[in-house]
């Protein structure tokens, strides 16, 4: 079912290369901020405001770099946001084309079942907390697995190596602690 690492690795490498060749390196986590800003601006229309030259925000993070994030949230039909939507569509179509993710797996991944039994709500709580920490960390670091680790290291960016060192230094012990059974 899963592609051999040689085929999969070359294909994934070609996608990262195509992105740099045609546009810019791949990144995802910023778009969580953009979606937050879009939602926030619906709840509180004063969050993002137009200036003479562009956009700014009452939130310092959205206003940084001359309101780049504020501007992207005001105009979501931009490359980076559409990229993430298309990524979701691509994953959906690919999963459907191989018969879809089995029902049991969609409800509860096997690795959770092997370690914690049939406790889906505990799993959802863990995924929620994990998501919180992942995105908080990604924004603090200024990128995630795709932006820092893959796009960064392929460009020989020192930041990519620092990020990867931190990510694996935490991920390996936490994974061993939480999921001791192989499943």
């Amino acid at each position, binding site marked *: 079912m*899963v*592609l051999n*690492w040689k085929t*999969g*690795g070359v*294909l*994934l490498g*070609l*996608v990262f290369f195509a992105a*740099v*060749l045609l*546009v*810019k390196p*791949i990144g*995802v986590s910023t778009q*969580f901020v953009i979606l*937050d800003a879009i*939602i926030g601006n619906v709840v509180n229309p004063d969050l993002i405001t137009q200036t003479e030259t562009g956009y700014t925000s009452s939130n310092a993070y959205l206003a940084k770099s001359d309101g780049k994030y504020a501007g992207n949230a005001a105009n979501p039909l931009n490359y980076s946001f*559409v*990229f993430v*939507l298309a*990524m979701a*569509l*691509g*994953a959906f179509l*690919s*999963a459907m084309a191989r018969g*879809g993710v089995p029902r049991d797996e*969609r409800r509860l991944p096997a*690795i*959770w079942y092997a370690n914690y039994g049939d406790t*889906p709500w505990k799993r959802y709580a863990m*995924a929620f907390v*994990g*998501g*919180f*920490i*992942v*995105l*908080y960390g*990604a924004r603090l*670091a*200024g990128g995630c*697995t*795709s*932006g*820092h680790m*893959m796009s960064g290291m392929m*460009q*020989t*960016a020192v*930041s990519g190596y*620092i*990020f990867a*060192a*931190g990510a694996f*230094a935490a991920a390996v012990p936490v*994974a*061993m602690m939480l999921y001791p059974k192989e*499943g």
Partner: protein
Amino acid sequence: MTSIILAVVIGAAFGAVLDRIGATNPNWIGKMLTLTHLHLMKTILLAIGTASVLMFGGQMLGLVDVGHMSVKTAYVGVFIGGLLLGAGWAAAGYCPGTGVCAAASGRKDAWFFIAGGLLGAAAYMVSYPWWKNAGLLEGEKLTLGTVPGAGYEGLTSLSGDLVGIVMGLVFIAIAIALPDRLRGAGEAVAPAE
């Protein structure tokens, strides 16, 4: 408009490949991070190496616009943020991109991951001034060598293009050399699904 078409094409290809290499499957992530099945790690290392060799090779030949590079700033927060992301990645089995892909392919827990992620990103938006005032976001945009025309400081004065190709080959070599598993006994067992 061209940029939107490119976003759709490259984005869809990225999502499809993530799905096909097992990266959107938390069982594969869990087995990679517990070092009991390193197939996905080999895939990722080979991908970084392949992309690096093509990009720097293309730049040397003048086929790739060096202006498309985008190197992020190195600062203390990159390491702290990396630690946090790593912990959450291990707990959830998803990172931002693969979480979105997994949710799209119908995994219920991934929707909770996205909800938590939106809240986490919002929490960072609120706490950003604190990190900034603490000076933890200050740094430089550095590459290992000095890439001609890229405008980034080099950690060394070596040719950035050559360093990029050599590092790419190193990543490929590690991908080939890495065994199927580093922990546990016997043959590595492929994860579920």
